[in-house]
């Protein structure tokens, strides 16, 4: 399959590295508004052609798949152009921040029988997949609540989000820079508790002297199969991407930045013994995962982007074999509905 990429920034390098590892996939073009960036990316990764005009690339390369890895405000237009050119499209999150644009894209993809994927990469990180296995096998029981918490210092000096000379493209999104993280929170919550029914949010600007409209966010979500508590913090330390799924039989929790999974369950036997066994098992898992992560960092590899690699590999497998893609149109619609609800003024406390 022939793939091309529009937007050669930081995340594009992960897409390219993954594409190079896939069999039967050739990256035949890369496009960026900057000639130097487009050319250097093509030079570095041995891509056959580089462009500064995406329409010229679509016409010349005639790709099967287009990866859109530009800043969010351009996603809709570029994805529409790619669909119009007859390509399947993989778009970085957020696919759009306007609900009508999301439905327009999904409709266009459906009409042309093309696959449209929004990058919910953390759904495919190994600890999240393991939690889903526990849910499917029944070990977790029924999901009661899911908690997803991201803590990233986006207000730190040098952070592109607080660059006072060139406003970050995400600042134009509802919710500002935090909106860039909402698809991660929403897609993870949605995957365990389904589409939302009601949402209540709290947005806060803790650091007064910052170009960000908000730097803290909390949300409580009532959904079809349970509840969710979502949070983003610019100030809590250490930085973490935490998910905890509470089931009727066990709790499973994982850090996705420094991946490890701990399962909290009480087996049979006297409660004190069961507790002791459970805590010792958790300690062993954390210890082993810590060594594994340390060695993994030394050895290189995708790290926290492991899920992106898995998502892309499964997407191309699906496209080649004609089976269902790993992310469905309905999922994209429901996740974006939740994102819209999280940013809506009427849902604030």
């Amino acid at each position: 399959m022939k793939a091309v990429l529009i937007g050669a920034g930081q995340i594009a390098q992960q897409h390219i590295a993954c594409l190079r590892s896939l069999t039967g996939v050739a990256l035949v073009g890369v496009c960026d508004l900057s000639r130097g960036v487009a050319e250097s990316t093509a030079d570095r990764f041995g891509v056959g052609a580089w462009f500064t005009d995406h329409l010229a690339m679509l016409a010349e390369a005639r790709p099967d798949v287009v990866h859109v890895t530009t800043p969010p405000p351009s996603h809709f237009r570029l994805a529409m152009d790619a669909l119009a050119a007859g390509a399947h499209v993989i778009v970085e999150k957020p696919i759009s921040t306007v609900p009508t644009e999301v439905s327009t894209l999904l409709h266009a993809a459906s009409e042309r029988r093309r696959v449209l994927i929004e990058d919910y990469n953390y759904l495919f990180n190994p600890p999240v997949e393991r939690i889903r296995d526990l849910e499917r096998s029944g070990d977790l029981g029924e999901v009661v609540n899911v908690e997803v918490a991201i803590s990233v210092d986006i207000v730190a000096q040098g952070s592109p989000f607080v660059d006072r000379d060139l406003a970050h493209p995400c600042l134009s999104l509802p919710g500002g820079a935090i909106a860039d993280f909402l698809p991660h929170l929403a897609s993870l919550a949605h995957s365990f508790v389904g589409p939302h029914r009601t949402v209540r949010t709290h947005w806060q600007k803790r650091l007064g002297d910052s170009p960000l409209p908000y730097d803290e966010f909390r949300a409580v979500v009532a959904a079809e199969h349970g509840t969710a508590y979502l949070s983003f913090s610019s100030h809590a330390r250490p930085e973490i991407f935490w998910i905890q799924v509470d089931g009727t039989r066990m709790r499973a929790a994982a850090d996705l930045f420094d991946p490890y999974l701990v399962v909290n369950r009480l087996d049979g036997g006297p409660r004190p013994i069961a507790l002791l066994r459970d805590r010792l098992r958790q300690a062993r898992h954390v210890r082993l995962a810590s060594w594994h992560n340390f060695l993994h960092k030394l050895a290189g590899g995708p790290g926290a982007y492991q899920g992106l690699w898995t998502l892309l590999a499964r997407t191309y497998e699906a496209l080649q074999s004609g089976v269902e893609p790993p992310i469905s149109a309905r999922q994209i619609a429901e996740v974006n509905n939740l994102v819209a609800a999280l940013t809506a003024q009427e849902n604030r406390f």
Partner: protein
Amino acid sequence: MNVLVTGAAGYLGRHIIAATLKRGHRVRALIRPSTWIDEARWGGAVEVFRADLRAPGALTPAFDQVDVLLHIAARVDGSESAQMADTVVGTERLLEAMAKSATRRIVLASSLSVYGWTAIRGTLTEDSPLETDLYRRDCYAIAKTWQERVVRRMCQEHDWALTVLRPGFIWGRDRAYPAGIGQKLGRWHLVFGPWSRPPMTHVENCADCFAEAMENPRAVGHTFNVVDGHDISSWRYLGEYFRRTGAAGHRIPVPYHMALAGATLAEWINRWLCQGRARLPGLLIPCRLQARFKPLRFSTRKLDEVLGWRPPLDFAHCLQRTYTASAAQQCCTSATPEQVQQVQECLTSSQSRT
């Protein structure tokens, strides 16, 4: 001449403005909107133009009535994409604006990091090969190489007069410990190849070289390496640093070839065990270690032969300017007209001694 200086709030940029004012030119300093700078330091001799190189459309008025562009701006830290955005995309935006103006002369601050240090033996000159295995080098080398490529291509397309200056390690007041003289590890300072002569250029010498290249018509079409050629070892640079700052620490001599052997072994293990994917520190990547510490010789001959330029400050004066607080030093970064006159006197007297 009317001179537009980018990176004007940076370390080299501030000194270049002082050197340019000293030669009687009119300066427009391009400074980011959020960068605080004491404009009074220039005594009204500099016009400040606030803009960010990455912002499209904001730069065209900066070239109004400008005869020559001194392009110094570049990012020296951050991720590769951040450095590419600032250094390469910023340069593209700047030159797109220049293409809409009458300005036809540009002096670019490049870097010795663009050379292929692994392949070079003996003396590094302007004819030495450039890096061919670029993407094993650090982000700075990658961004500076592409910046130079972008500038050369644009100059060719628009028939602009270009001079490229490639400074070595820039040192001076407030920057007495550049990366080329050692690696600090707590109280310990590793000096790789302690008797090698690193390619140092004192910031005032370097700034004077830029001013000379800007106004000397013989510089057009040439590339020059900018080093002082003082023949001073890394060991001595660091010794002077300890002695004159009173900083506590110990110098540890590390034979260069031993360090290179260690880096080569680390690279071999990385390839063998991790398919080359392990993220090693720069000192354990041979080409990066070489670009910092390889004991080459560095010639100042081309600057002398083509421009007749020699560094105005000898090593003793460089040390004095770096470590001794005085009005003469201050004026190089905050040049009021009276101070500019003082600098001229200082430089004239030091030139006569060299």
